[in-house]
């Protein structure tokens, strides 16, 4: 207790030195936090971007569908699954989808197309489909007055068939029962541009697709968005337990190629973060060593008047720890608004980037306990670790020698 008071007083006694040391540590903290925020942010933003596009965080299929998609590999009771997911807290939203290869015809041309039947309502909150509509509108799921359903087509199909908003689109495919699926749809929306991933896709309302393919009430895929992306794997495992007859997989498995390249990226990032932490460490080393060793003379005097080396060393560690904590508090206070700004608004790019219909205009970071807490713990740890040997050394020097030193 006495030591604590002493340490406290010492800090304020040596105002300048303490201030310098504290500023240095606080500054290091703020920069460290910023870089963590950047690193986490860019990694998570990329994942978020990709998973929101169409994958979702977790997907449910019948076994073997992902490896070899076949029209008959269906989930036959999506109702039950929807109810389950709607009532589950960790799930933010989910949607149902149907897939089939087809040939699309206009009056004069034909081209292969991928049909994706989606639950339009649910799709809105689970993926960015609505934002990708580049002309026309996000279609309705109801047939029009003549009984025709609407379709949204990729820009590639629009180009190949030379059709646009309001034109008729014929789709031919094979139904789940083997029959010849054929029907006419009205194009009411165009998605993306000619370079988009969706350029060869025809989006239909789920029911229309199910009717077309003679698969009433059945779907191929349930795509789930969680409240927390980080839970993808655990949530998938948990859901798998509840749905043993189906295959529930996190996005890392479904989109393994993307995941692999993200991991590569992360590795490079981790290296950079490691380097930054190292430099922060050196900075703290620099600061603490300087401030402790500067006071050798002072400690010499203390020893000369009878203080025991152990106590001195302890006091040094206390002081350093206390100082580090105080500077961290200040650091957090200053870092909070900065990181908050960075997360919410971010640094503007010289030119906004267009990725398949979605526009990225800023680099943003992330706020989390990890971002704020890790640098804090690290710096305090570094400071303490450094102060111990430094303090011991300072405390051991013979008083006469100490008092002669600079």
């Amino acid at each position, binding site marked *: 207790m006495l030591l604590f008071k002493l340490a406290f007083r010492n800090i304020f006694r040596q105002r300048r030195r303490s201030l310098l040391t504290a500023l240095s540590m606080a500054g290091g903290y703020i920069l460290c936090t910023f870089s963590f925020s950047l690193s986490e942010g860019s990694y998570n933003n990329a994942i978020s971007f990709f998973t929101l596009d169409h994958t979702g965080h977790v997907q449910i299929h019948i076994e073997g569908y992902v490896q070899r998609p076949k029209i008959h590999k269906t989930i036959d009771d999506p109702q039950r699954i929807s109810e389950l997911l709607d009532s589950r807290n960790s799930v933010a939203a989910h949607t149902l989808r149907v897939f089939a290869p087809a040939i699309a015809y206009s009056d004069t041309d034909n081209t292969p*197309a991928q049909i994706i039947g989606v639950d339009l309502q649910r799709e809105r909150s689970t993926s960015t489909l609505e934002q990708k509509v580049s002309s026309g509108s996000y279609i309705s799921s109801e047939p029009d007055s003549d009984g025709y359903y609407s379709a949204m087509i990729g820009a590639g199909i629009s180009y190949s068939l030379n059709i646009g908003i309001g034109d008729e689109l014929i789709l031919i495919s094979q139904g789940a029962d083997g029959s010849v699926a054929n029907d006419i749809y009205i194009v009411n929306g165009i998605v993306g541009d000619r370079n988009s991933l969706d350029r060869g896709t025809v989006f239909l309302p789920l029911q229309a697709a199910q009717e077309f393919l003679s698969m009433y009430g059945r779907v191929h895929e349930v795509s789930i968005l969680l409240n927390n992306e980080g839970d993808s794997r655990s949530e998938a495992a948990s859901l798998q337990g509840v749905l043993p007859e189906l295959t529930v997989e996190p996005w890392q498995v479904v989109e393994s190629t993307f995941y692999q390249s993200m991991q590569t990226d992360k590795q490079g990032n981790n290296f950079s973060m490691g380097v930054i932490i190292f430099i922060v460490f050196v900075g703290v080393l620099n600061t603490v060593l300087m401030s402790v060793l500067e006071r050798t003379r002072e400690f010499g005097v203390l020893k000369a008047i009878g203080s025991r080396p152990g106590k001195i060393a302890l006091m040094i560690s206390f002081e350093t720890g206390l100082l580090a904590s105080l500077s961290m508090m200040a650091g957090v206070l200053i870092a909070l608004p900065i990181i908050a700004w960075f997360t919410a608004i971010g640094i503007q790019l010289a030119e906004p980037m267009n990725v398949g219909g979605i526009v990225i205009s800023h680099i943003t970071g992330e706020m989390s306990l990890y971002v704020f807490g890790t640098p804090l713990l690290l710096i305090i740890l570094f400071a303490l670790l450094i102060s111990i040997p430094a303090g011991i050394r300072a405390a051991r020097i013979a008083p006469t020698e100490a008092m002669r030193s600079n």
Partner: protein
Amino acid sequence: MISAKVLTQHRQLYCTANMANPLYICLLLMSFLFPNPALADDRAIELIDEMEALYQGQSSSAVMTMIVETPQYQREMEMEASSIGTEKSFIRILSPRKDRGISTLKLDMEMWNFLPKINRVIKVPPSMMMGSWMGSDFTNDDLVNQTTLTDEYDLTLDETDEMYTIVLVPKEETVTVWGKIDYIVNKEYMVPVSQNFYDDNGELVRKMEFSELKDFSGRMIPTRLEMTPMNKEGHQTILIYEELEFDPPDVDESIFTMRNLRSRF
């Protein structure tokens, strides 16, 4: 990657063969069922020729039922078909009701479908004419098999009291997926009993069985053809000729026109 985008397109183009015109196979079945053999054994050749001629005439018309069995569904289709040689054919689906009226016209290598539901005639792109047909057990090899040229197979002939067995082994250059094909022919009626397809190791991969002989215009013809793949559990395709007429009087050129294709049925 560039490959992903390319892939999707090509895959779609050729995958749709999976839903390819179901009727094309019938036409080709009739014309390509028996590949033309090489000249090694005269008697064998004669036999093969006779088998081939069994289902063909200058022109023909037929009513057939096709049953496709898969582990996922069983599908039965009834259709009427007319043809002149192997170049012109016209097929119309009679049942199930959903597909009733779907018609196909084939002239040489071109094909058109009429789909009554949407009241449109669409041309069938070449890609759709290949590949596994509509989940059935016939392969593109059957459809586009060009081994009707001579000198493609080596033949040997065996016989018992009741049966001829003709074994066809493709030559080195012959384009086929089969390592060996054999025919078992009933001596008494001179009709095929079974046709078996083997891989290069001699393993039976699929077999076609002919049964239920009926008399049509003086010829004894097996009216039930069953194709069973050995490597796919639960799959089978059965073709049953309900009616078959050779050189019928009412089959003339006007049937094989776009006009007829479009006509309401």
